[in-house]
């Protein structure tokens, strides 16, 4: 074994994307589509694809591949594909339509996305994303997605999340819902047509890799507990992000990393796991009982003004009684050009700084008041209450319901919360992971957002991957098939199946003292404290230790009641938390190794004099793709055999865009 770096990881060979054609980005996607092999329509039925997850990326892909005539098996843990968490995205979806004639273009969307990602994304993938963005809007409108319209009947746009053009399409505050319902309906149409087989309340628990190719999954029917084997010619993971490693996040309760992590353990590299986005406009935590955080669209920052009192002693006062002169509109003060529309990471970190200075507002949580004001008084004065209601009505209602306060009268309180994970399984230009036949789309992959994602880009990526990218690239892979039939008792299948059965048995047999949730909360606290908005070497090393200890305790002391052959929500959660306990460690290792600040990853050791993120392009201009390090089976933690991970660097090459230190001043 090679020497451990920082005592926790080793470094391996560099990797590179070999699929992007060697032509300028503008013609690259056309060339790739042209080069990709075709599959005769008559042969498509014989080719099967498993798709895990039914959000925008998975649902759209399942529908599109079904329409093309492939045999698709679609899986989701929810009771219906329509519940996937894409549904909760509020703000909008970007597209380079330039309907406002304000200077937008494919290139500008590409540029903004790369810059927003703090130059840590792969140019080629991002350009393609911008390129297909306009098609997404056409597709969705044709499906009946009710985007906001102007009185003339044409589509409306707004500017969103730190960009200076209006390219965001939206459906009040429910854009994700409307887009997902569009994809869901397209998917159900294919279910009716018989091209897609739908498996709801099924969770993927293992990947089957046979002869070096991903050939299927082991899934548990969450209702009957049955462990099932599903085989196919290719597997697509569209299972979303892993923000729930923090316990409190804006993700859905069931969002998890298990599908990704199981694939990672089987050989898929994990790209940039430490890149986490903290969303600045969430409703603050109200107490220990909190089970999740609620995001409010950052479109609120278009009209709301963010401030805290200048004086600490004003923090407890009714905000309406604090005179203008005693308010600190800190984003407008520090960043006059962008004001309240600075990127998410800056807005989040500044909010934290204000609270750390003791100028936070709202109830005391721990030692701090964790909240800043988001004030609409000016907007209401300028636009009238009706216009504000028209734009943000449902967000205001949501806020009022959760907090019991009326935001039309008193300023809202907001605080940052974990929202999105830019990291994910490493994929090439074709969205194929390091395991042939395993494709990863949407938030589950690492590819498009670099170190930070711009607002209204998650929906864009999910649908771009699902409708337009994957169906074209997977075709090239499937054209080589059908692959030799895998029998249910092939050693790889039996091994995967047995692993799932034994793991389930083992979890139920522990019969310890602590609930799954208590472990999850503790893990979340460790992650938030040491691997959250601000990270340090010492903190991360400590976190790695703490997580290892917690993981060992989990496998010794978790208490799961009930049986494996019925609906058992504790058992489901336990499996997910077990994987989070491994992922958490990898995230800390990644954050530890990346001794620079970039995008959502802020290392306290690497900042400018003004306290801004300081990149080190000379050392870190690469994607960190982590290979799972198989460890010795430890009798003290029989469920986890995690060893030191191996770092593979993919150098980032910027040809179309010039590297710049980001500045929003």
């Amino acid at each position, binding site marked *: 074994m090679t020497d451990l770096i920082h005592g926790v990881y080793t470094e391996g060979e560099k990797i590179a994307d070999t699929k992007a054609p060697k032509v300028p980005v503008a013609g690259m996607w056309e060339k790739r589509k042209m080069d990709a092999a075709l599959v005769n329509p008559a042969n498509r039925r014989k080719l099967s694809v498993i798709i895990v997850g039914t959000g925008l990326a998975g649902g759209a892909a399942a529908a599109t591949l079904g329409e093309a005539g492939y045999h698709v098996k679609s899986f989701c843990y929810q009771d219906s594909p329509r519940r996937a*968490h894409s549904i909760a995205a509020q703000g909008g979806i970007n597209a380079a339509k330039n309907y406002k004639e304000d200077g937008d273009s494919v290139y500008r969307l590409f540029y903004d996305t790369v810059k927003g990602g703090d130059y840590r994304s792969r140019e080629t993938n991002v350009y393609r994303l911008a390129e297909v963005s306009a098609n997404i809007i056409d597709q969705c409108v044709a499906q009946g997605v009710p985007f906001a319209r102007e009185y*003339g009947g044409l589509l409306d746009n707004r500017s969103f999340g730190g960009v200076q053009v209006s390219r965001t399409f939206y459906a009040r505050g429910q854009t994700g819902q409307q887009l997902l319902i569009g994809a869901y*309906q397209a998917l159900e149409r294919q279910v009716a047509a018989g091209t897609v087989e739908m498996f709801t309340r099924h969770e993927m628990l293992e990947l089957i890799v046979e002869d070096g190719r991903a050939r299927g999954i082991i899934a548990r029917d969450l209702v009957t507990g049955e462990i099932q084997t599903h085989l196919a010619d290719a597997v697509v993971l569209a299972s979303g992000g892993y923000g729930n490693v923090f316990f409190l996040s804006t993700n859905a309760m069931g969002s998890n990393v298990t599908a990704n992590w199981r694939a990672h353990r089987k050989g898929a590299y994990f790209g940039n796991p430490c890149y986490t986005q903290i969303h600045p406009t969430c409703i603050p935590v109200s107490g220990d009982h909190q089970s999740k955080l609620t995001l409010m669209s950052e479109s609120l920052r278009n009209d709301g003004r963010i401030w805290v009192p200048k004086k600490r002693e004003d923090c407890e006062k009714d905000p309406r009684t604090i005179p203008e002169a005693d308010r600190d509109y800190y984003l407008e003060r520090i960043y006059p050009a962008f004001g309240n529309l600075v990127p998410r990471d800056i807005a989040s970190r500044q909010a934290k700084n204000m609270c750390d200075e003791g100028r936070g507002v709202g109830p005391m949580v721990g030692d701090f008041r964790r909240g800043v004001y988001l004030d609409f008084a000016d907007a209401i004065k300028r636009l009238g209450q009706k216009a504000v209601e028209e734009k943000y009505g449902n967000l205001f209602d949501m806020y009022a319901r959760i907090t019991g306060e009326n935001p039309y009268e008193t300023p809202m309180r907001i605080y940052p919360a974990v929202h999105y994970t830019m990291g994910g399984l490493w994929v090439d230009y074709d969205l194929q992971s390091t395991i042939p036949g395993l494709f990863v789309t949407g938030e589950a992959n690492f590819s498009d957002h670099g170190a930070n994602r711009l607002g209204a880009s998650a929906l864009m990526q999910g649908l771009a991957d699902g409708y337009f990218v994957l169906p074209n690239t997977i075709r090239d892979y499937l054209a080589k098939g059908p692959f030799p039939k895998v029998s249910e008792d092939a050693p790889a299948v039996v091994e995967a199946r047995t692993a799932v059965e034994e793991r389930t048995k083992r979890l139920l047999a522990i019969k310890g003292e602590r609930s799954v949730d208590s472990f999850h909360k503790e893990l979340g606290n460790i992650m938030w404290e040491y691997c959250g908005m601000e990270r340090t070497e010492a903190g991360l090393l400590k976190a790695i230790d703490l997580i290892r200890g917690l993981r060992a305790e989990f496998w010794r002391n978790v208490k799961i009641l009930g049986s494996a052959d019925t609906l058992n929500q504790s058992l489901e959660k336990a499996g997910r938390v077990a994987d989070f306990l491994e992922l958490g460690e990898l995230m800390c290792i990644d954050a530890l190794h990346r001794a620079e600040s970039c995008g959502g990853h802020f290392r306290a050791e690497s900042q400018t004099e003004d306290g801004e993120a300081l990149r080190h392009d000379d050392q870190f201009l690469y994607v960190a793709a982590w290979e799972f390090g198989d460890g010795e089976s430890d009798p003290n933690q029989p469920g986890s055999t995690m060893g030191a991970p191996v770092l593979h660097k993919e150098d980032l090459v910027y040809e179309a865009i010039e590297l710049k230190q980001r500045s929003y001043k």
Partner: protein
Amino acid sequence: MATSTKSDPKNMDLTLRIWRQDGPSDRGHLQTYEVSDISPDMSFLEMLDVLNEQLNAKGEEPIAFDSDCREGICGMCGLMISGHAHGPEKTTTCQLHMRSFKDGDTITVEPWRADAFPIIKDLVVDRSSFDRIIQAGGFISVNTGSAPEANAAPVPKQKADRAFQSAECIGCGACVAACPNASAMLFMGAKVTHLGELPQGQPERWARVVSMVSQHDHEGFGGCTNTGACSVACPKGIPQDVISTLNKDLRTAMRQGG
């Protein structure tokens, strides 16, 4: 009720009567539990989380209930709370907060009851009948890649707004749960109105309604008696007039020999 020391005077002690049912074939029964020191800032489901932690600690299997996004949009949660679908406020169960209750209250919690929503366990029901109604026609047939330019067909704002309002349906099933006939007309009306108001939805408009309503009936939902209980229970406030549109569309389809 067990005496408790409250950590905050605003906190509550409550008696819960909760439906427990081991599986689809079990008869099921209402079981009484006590919870104490419940903060008014908790959501209803967080209160159930607290109870489940207690049960787990006592060695009693936690209560199964559905929830996912917990921000009122995915439609996964849904409980009948003291006779009201999603409880006394106009919202989803996950967005119902305990400040809607008083110290000492007794709260009865039951699953959605409809034969088209069979119970899986405790408070969890199977709503796949909704998916099958959508499969029957709740879509616009447009293959990926075949869409015309998005601004090619302007939509009058009024129609766009009504389509949007109808499209707000989250498919939670509260309309069915509250309906005296366990009818899913509001769910269906919402979809038929959403797609029917848009120019893109016109080609399949009449076939869609016939197909969806037939599937609805086939699933075993009841017929509509226009009581409006659905609309009252709907967390998204989908108005009863979408059912009128559904009826009108079916009548038109019938005239056209559908």
